[in-house]
C-alpha cells in the first residue's frame, strides 16, 4: 500500500507532521550541539569528525523540514520552520536539552541518541509514505558511520580505568534518565502504524532499543538507562541550556532573514 499525503486521514496527517518535526528538531539540535566542538575538540581528528557529523545531521534536519513544509503547506519553507520558532516551539527530545558538557557527555549523549534514532529509522524504512521511506533509506546509510564512530568512543571511555570511565559514568548519570525521551509517544501515533507509515508504536520501539543496547551495557558493566524520568513533562518544556543554544543558532537569521551561505 502506498499512501500519498492527500490519502491520509487528518489525524494521521497531523501525527506524521509531529513525527517529522520531532525527528527534524532532534537532528537539528544534536547537529548544532556537536558543531560547538568545531575548533576545540580534544583531538584534531575529532574536530574534523564532529564537524562532519554535525553537517550530516543538519542535512538530515533540512531534508526532514522540507518534507514537513510540503506536508503542512502553510507558506513556511524549511528555513522558516527551522529558525523562526521561539524555544518553546521546538519538539526535540529532552535528552538533547542538556548543556554540551565535557567529551564524555558528548559521547554518552550521542551513543544514547544514535542507538535510539537508529531503532526509530528502522521502523520507518519500509513505510507506506514514499517521501519519508526514501529519505530514511538514505539517512540510514550515513547514520551507520555515526554509530561506528560513537560506538568506538563509548567502548574506549568505558573500558579505560580511572578518569575516562568515571566521567562517562557521571555523564550517564545525568543523561540516561532522559534517553528514552527520543522514543517518547507522539499524539495519534497509532494512526501512523495503521497507515503503514511506521511499523510499531513508541512502547515497542523503546523495547527494541533496550534489547539493542543491553549487550553493550552488560559487557561494559554499565548501568542500563532507567525508564524516562518525568514522562508527563511536555516536549516543548525546555531547559536554559537549550534557550542559550537557540539564541546562538538563530543569531544570523535574526540579523538578516535573507542571509545565505
Amino acid at each position, binding site marked *: 500500500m502506498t499512501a500519498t499525503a492527500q490519502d491520509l486521514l487528518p489525524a494521521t496527517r497531523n501525527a506524521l507532521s509531529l513525527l517529522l518535526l520531532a525527528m527534524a528538531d532532534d537532528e537539528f539540535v544534536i547537529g548544532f550541539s556537536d558543531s560547538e566542538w568545531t575548533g576545540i575538540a580534544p583531538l584534531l581528528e575529532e574536530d574534523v569528525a564532529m564537524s562532519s557529523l554535525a*553537517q550530516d545531521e543538519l*542535512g*538530515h534536519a533540512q531534508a526532514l523540514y522540507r518534507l514537513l513544509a510540503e506536508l503542512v503547506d502553510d507558506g513556511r519553507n524549511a528555513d522558516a520552520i527551522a529558525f523562526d520558532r521561539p524555544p518553546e516551539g521546538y519538539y526535540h527530545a529532552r535528552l538533547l536539552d542538556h548543556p554540551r558538557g565535557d567529551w564524555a557527555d558528548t559521547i554518552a549523549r550521542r551513543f544514547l541518541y544514535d542507538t535510539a534514532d537508529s531503532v526509530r529509522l528502522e521502523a520507518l524504512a519500509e513505510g507506506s509514505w514514499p517521501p519519508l521511506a*526514501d529519505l530514511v*533509506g538514505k*539517512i540510514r*546509510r*550515513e547514520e551507520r*558511520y555515526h554509530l*561506528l564512530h560513537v560506538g568506538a568512543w563509548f567502548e574506549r571511555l568505558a573500558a579505560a580505568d580511572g578518569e575516562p570511565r568515571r566521567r562517562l559514568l557521571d555523564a550517564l548519570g545525568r543523561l540516561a534518565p532522559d534517553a528514552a525521551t527520543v522514543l517518547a509517544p507522539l499524539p495519534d501515533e497509532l494512526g501512523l502504524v495503521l497507515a503503514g507509515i511506521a511499523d510499531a508504536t513508541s512502547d515497542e520501539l523503546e523495547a527494541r532499543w533496550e534489547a539493542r543496547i543491553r549487550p553493550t551495557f552488560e559487557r561494559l558493566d554499565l548501568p542500563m538507562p532507567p525508564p524516562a524520568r518525568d514522562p508527563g513533562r511536555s516536549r516543548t518544556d525546555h531547559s536554559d541550556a537549550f534557550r542559550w543554544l537557540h539564541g546562538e543558532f538563530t543569531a544570523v537569521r535574526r540579523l538578516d532573514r535573507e542571509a545565505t551561505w
Partner: protein
Amino acid sequence: MIAAVDETAVRAALAEIPDPEIPVVSVVDLGMIEAVEVDGGRAIRVELLPTFVGCPAIDAIRAAVETRLAAFGRPVEVDVSFRVPWTSDRITPAGRAKLRRSGFAPPPGSDRAAVRCPYCGSDRVALDNLFGPTQCRSLFYCRACRQPFEQFKAI
C-alpha cells in the same frame, strides 16, 4: 543550428559537468544522474541523486545542470531526489580510475576489495579518520609510502 536533443545528447552534455568538490570527476562519473527524459520534443527532465542528504554542493550542481542544458533551447527540470538512494557503487569504472589518478582511493567496490594507496598501490594502509574534509571522504595513511590520502566513503 540547435543540436538534436535526445537522451544520449543530454547525458553527453551532463558528462561535461564537474563535481564542485572533486572537479576531476563529472556528475555522470559519480553516478548522480538517475533518469533523463526528453519529453516529446519539449522539456528535458533530469533526476539528480545527491551523494549525501545534506551535500552542500547540490545547489551548485543543480544550477550547473540547468545552465549546461539550457544550450538545448528547451525548458529544463531538475529533480533532486532520494527515490533511489545514491550509493558509492554507482561510481563508474571511469570515475574510479579518475579518482585514483588524482590521489583519492575509490570506495571499496562490490567485491569489497581492500583499500589501496592511490599513490603507490600498497594495501598497507591505516584508517586515520572515518570523517574527512567533506561528508563523502575518509582519511587514510599509507604505511608503505608514508603518504596521507583521502578515500571516497563507501556508502
